[in-house]
């Protein structure tokens, strides 16, 4: 390659387009009552409807329509008063019906937008991504290509089909073309998918797990010489299955196209596949022959006509926009940008908020989740939230705030809870971790320390305050580290006439 990314984007202007598919988390499928559980053994969640057997009659899952309208509302879309399903006809064994039930010219939601913020060299900048449509369809089955060296279709001897996924409600969210992002195109794409994922998660309509395929992104990009005002031929990169990959795939694809154009070659309109290992894309199906899906209205399903009352009921259910919520919490907690970013990247904002709601002091809630709990989670290679409940963390923090636990003791309590020794109270009881706060018990240790180091005691009486450190150390040692050092210091100084 001759042009690197920097020089590629100095010569060419990328134009983006993003299609996101999200599997809804309904209990049952879109048009039948089969379960939707991920990872069930093959072909155990199918029925005559989702297998396309003759005479089967589909019926729409009302919850799926509700979820789709919620998504549309959260993306500032208009909800169509009348929309219909359509058959998208194609012959490919991932759909046993030989068509996919989708929507064509009458989608449920249209004309929305999402504002995404990215960090640029000139500080934070907001890009408005226009949403063309949000429509309903159904997911396809899973193919396994057997034979051939690569597991790809080419060279495969036969394919094996599992239809458990066929018919799971799928929502497709399509942007209009996104011009004017310049060299930030890959970051805008990543920020858009991230923000979309956060919104979908806040709505509670999907598991949004990119690695399990419940959120998938197809990224279109075309290049044109800067200032030319023309729109280049685009490629579509499929199978981008992580947020990082969205950014990498587009960076790689912009470089590839720029180098082709630079060499005087043309861009072929085609579908490309993202290769996770190399960050490059390889060509898939060429779209030179325009696809012909022969869409027509699905005669087995009646139209969807949500009335204004239903739409407003759903609108009232919308949660706070995650981006706004983040800004609000950052302000409320008074957290620096870097720490907020750490919290978000570690996906700990929700639990920290919950812990604070349970009465924990905000700074401590953040420090414990980001610090000790994350450290333990790292060691065990699990999510911090799987180690301990917010209620237990709040309980431990309350004990620190009241002086019943020192940070050091609290770490032992956390460790005990994490290793399954029970609730914080049980761990404290079993391990005997309570701070020695009883003044009379402490005084015994203090008297002993003074008796053992009469010279030091004399120096303190004479005004040498820093010398108290040696006595504090002795008291802490005598109490097995279970005393509150600040308290010990206070008692020692008072006892030696310096309080």
């Amino acid at each position, binding site marked *: 390659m001759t042009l690197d990314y920097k020089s590629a984007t100095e010569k060419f202007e990328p134009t983006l387009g993003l299609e996101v598919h999200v599997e809804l988390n*309904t*209990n*049952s499928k879109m048009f039948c*009552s*089969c*379960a939707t559980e991920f990872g069930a*053994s*093959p*072909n*155990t*969640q*199918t*029925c*005559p409807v989702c*297998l396309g*057997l003759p005479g089967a009659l589909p*019926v*729409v*899952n*009302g*919850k*799926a*329509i509700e979820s789709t309208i919620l998504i549309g509302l959260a993306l500032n879309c208009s909800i169509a008063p*009348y929309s*219909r399903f359509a058959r998208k*006809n194609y*012959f*490919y*064994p991932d759909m*046993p019906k030989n068509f996919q039930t989708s929507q064509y010219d009458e989608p449920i939601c249209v004309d929305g937008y999402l504002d995404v913020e990215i960090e640029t060299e000139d500080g934070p900048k907001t890009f408005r991504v226009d949403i063309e449509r949000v429509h309903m369809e159904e997911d396809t089955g899973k*193919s*396994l*290509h*057997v*034979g051939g060296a690569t597991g*790809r*279709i080419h060279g*495969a*001897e*036969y*394919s*094996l*089909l*599992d*239809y458990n996924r066929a018919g799971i409600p799928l929502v497709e969210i399509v942007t209009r073309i996104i011009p004017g992002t310049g060299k930030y195109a890959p970051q805008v794409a990543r920020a858009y998918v991230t923000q979309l994922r956060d919104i979908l998660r806040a709505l509670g309509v999907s598991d949004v797990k990119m690695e399990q395929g419940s959120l998938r992104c197809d990224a279109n990009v075309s290049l044109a010489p800067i200032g030319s005002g023309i729109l280049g031929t685009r490629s579509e990169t499929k199978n981008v299955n992580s947020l990082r990959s969205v950014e990498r795939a587009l960076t790689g694809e912009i470089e590839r196209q720029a180098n082709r154009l630079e060499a005087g070659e043309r861009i072929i309109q085609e*579908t490309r*596949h993202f290769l996770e290992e190399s960050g490059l894309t390889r060509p*898939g*199906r060429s779209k030179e022959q325009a696809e*012909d899906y*022969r869409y*027509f*209205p*699905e*005669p087995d399903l*009646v*139209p*969807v*006509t*949500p009335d204004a009352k239903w739409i407003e009921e759903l609108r009232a259910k919308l949660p706070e926009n995650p981006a706004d919520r983040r800004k609000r919490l950052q302000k409320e907690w008074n957290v620096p940008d870097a720490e907020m970013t750490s919290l978000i990247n570690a996906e700990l904002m929700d639990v920290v908020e919950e812990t604070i709601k349970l009465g924990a002091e905000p700074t401590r809630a953040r420090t414990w989740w980001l610090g000790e709990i994350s450290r333990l989670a790292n060691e065990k290679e699990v999510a911090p939230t799987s180690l301990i409940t917010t209620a237990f963390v709040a309980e431990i923090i309350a004990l620190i705030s009241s002086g019943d636990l020192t940070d050091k003791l609290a770490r032992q309590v956390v460790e005990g809870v994490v290793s399954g020794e029970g609730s914080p109270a049980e761990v404290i009881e079993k391990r005997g971790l309570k701070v020695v706060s009883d003044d009379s018990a402490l005084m015994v240790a203090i008297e002993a320390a003074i008796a053992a180091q009469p010279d030091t005691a004399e120096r303190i009486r004479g005004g040498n305050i820093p010398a108290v450190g040696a006595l504090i150390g002795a008291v802490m040692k005598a109490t097995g580290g279970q005393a509150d050092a600040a308290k010990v210091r206070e008692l020692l100084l008072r006892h030696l006439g310096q309080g």
Partner: protein
Amino acid sequence: MAAISRDDVAHLAKLARVEMTPDELDHMAVELEQILGAVKRVQEVATADIPPTSHPLSMSNIFRDDVVKPSLTNEEALSGAPAKAEDRFKVPQILGEE
């Protein structure tokens, strides 16, 4: 509506994965033309005040509750399959697509 050409039939045959001989293409173009002619009569009565419909009944918003009901067993699901392996439907190699 434009007449059905031989090329249209060839295109449809390709989409439908049906192999047709040149004779059959000629023959089918004529037959489809006749069928379309018959259906075209509907357009004569479809005036502006009659909205197009995709369903015989004027109903909308027919939804089911999101409740799981038992599915077929794996054996039942695969019982009509011409070929199967590893609890899955077995189909011939797929060509020309990714």
